[in-house]
């Protein structure tokens, strides 16, 4: 069982739709501890990605991810633009030439994307950022893969770990990004970037478990 190129494209569309539906919510989270634009930023970027997909639908998965990453970099701005952009560009590097992904390929892609985010943003787990959803999500993937789990079960585990990571940002005091300016006042609020990153892994599970 593998993840096909069409499944990748479906995932990107579903992620865009989820961002669009939850844009106001993401912005609300960002208003509480940031500057109230995370929903608008991600939505602007993913809507731009949607317009690009038809032109690259016949490319390999690596090229698709790279194009998505570059599109995000050039349309999102803010902190999330370079971070999500770098993530997808690194995922593209890790999947260059591939027309479908095994679970191993997906783990490698996620690892590369995650490393890109860390390289770019220099955040640690516990800093109250998107890292706090991505790290447990990636970790769960790896554990499942090492245990020989099926793709659906690995994806489900990764989505629910990301969700727990997202919720776990609530009590944290932010040390990176705009929320860090609030100091202690940032505690008690869920991080917007962790929330959008949780959507990323949730929509992957959702889409691929149906199609794959």
């Amino acid at each position, binding site marked *: 069982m593998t993840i096909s190129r069409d499944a990748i494209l479906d995932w990107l569309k579903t992620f865009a739709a989820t961002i669009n539906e939850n844009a106001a919510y993401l*912005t609300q989270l960002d*208003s509480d*501890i*940031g*500057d*109230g*634009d995370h929903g*608008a*930023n991600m939505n*602007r970027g993913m809507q731009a990605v949607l317009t690009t997909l038809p032109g690259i639908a016949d490319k390999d998965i690596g090229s698709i991810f790279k194009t998505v990453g570059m599109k995000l*970099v*050039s*349309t*999102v*701005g*803010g*902190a*999330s*633009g*370079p*971070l999500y952009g770098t993530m997808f560009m690194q995922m593209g590097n890790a999947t260059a030439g591939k027309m479908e992904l095994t679970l191993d390929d997906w783990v490698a892609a996620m690892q590369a994307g995650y490393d890109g985010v860390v390289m*770019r*943003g220099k955040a640690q787990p516990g800093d109250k950022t998107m890292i706090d959803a991505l790290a447990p999500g990636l970790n769960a993937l790896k554990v499942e893969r090492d245990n020989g789990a099926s793709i659906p079960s690995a994806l489900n585990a990764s989505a629910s770990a990301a969700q727990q990571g997202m919720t776990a940002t609530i009590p944290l005091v932010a*040390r*990176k*990004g*705009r929320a*860090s*300016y*609030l*100091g202690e*006042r940032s505690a008690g609020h869920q991080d917007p970037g962790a929330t959008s990153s949780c959507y990323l892994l949730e929509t992957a599970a959702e889409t691929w478990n149906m199609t794959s």
Partner: protein
Amino acid sequence: MKKLINKPEDVVVEELRGIAAAHSDLVQVFYEPNYITRADAPIKGKVALVSGGGSGHEPMHGGFVGKGMLDAACPGAVFTSPTPDQMLEATKAVNGGAGVLHIVKNYTGDIMNFEMAADLARGEGIQVEAVVTNDDVAVKDSLYTAGRRGVGVTVLLEKIAGAAAERGDSLAQVKTIAEQVNAQGRSMGMALTSCTVPQAGKPTFELGDDEMEIGIGIHGEPGRTRMKLKSAHEIVEIMATAIVDDLPYKAGDEVLAFVNGMGGTPLIELYIVYNELYNFLKGRGIQIGRNLIGSYITSLEMAGCSLTLLKLDDQLKALWDAPVKTPGMRWGA
């Protein structure tokens, strides 16, 4: 939400069209990617200054493009740092062969986007340096956090470094002066009301009728503390004490005092604040050698103010006094 706008998503591009229609003698506006350059860019042999950041802080930065200040500005979406392709195109457009200085306010997004742009520009053979402003004493500085925000000092730095570039300083010299301005400047801000990001449609935070936020940034972020509304005298006392003690500024120092409105504050209140600041500094033996009073680095329609002090020396004074001709700051020309 009450604003003089059409569609929230068109705010930035329509603002740019307004600037283009109004100031074609001073600047040129480019779209997709969006950036503003001096009308006479590139200037051969002159170091070029490029800044940028989210929109909503007008006149910063677009209003500071012109002779004696910035060569280009890159406006992002409201409160969202611009994207690397904007800075790259702007950098290429104003590069006169003597190198380009990126002036970056210390926010995660701005830093990362400008870094990516600088890498790309260097890849195309342009000499790029960056200076990062981080003057906000409301934020505790620490190695483990994003550090202090860049706020009011950015305006002063763009003027002073712009004058240095205009007189023919090298990239290294302009960068040194810019770093000196950042090192010798400190700021703090406060809000009487929140602002409303057009695409959010409602205030970023809610404040009671008798409350204010102290230590706010310029993106509608809430501040460090919320407290009962105080008099101008007490507000200046709180903010100026934090600023003066941080560097510290000492008796005998000469400073540039910058009283900035956040966008919704009328000038009459800024003069009352300036009067308090003047008396406060007099009490500490600090002399105001130059001043700037007005709304130069704003947060949309937020009511409130920020104070910035910059320690002066003869060179900084001469560069401050040098002619400047931009839509938002103009003298001697």
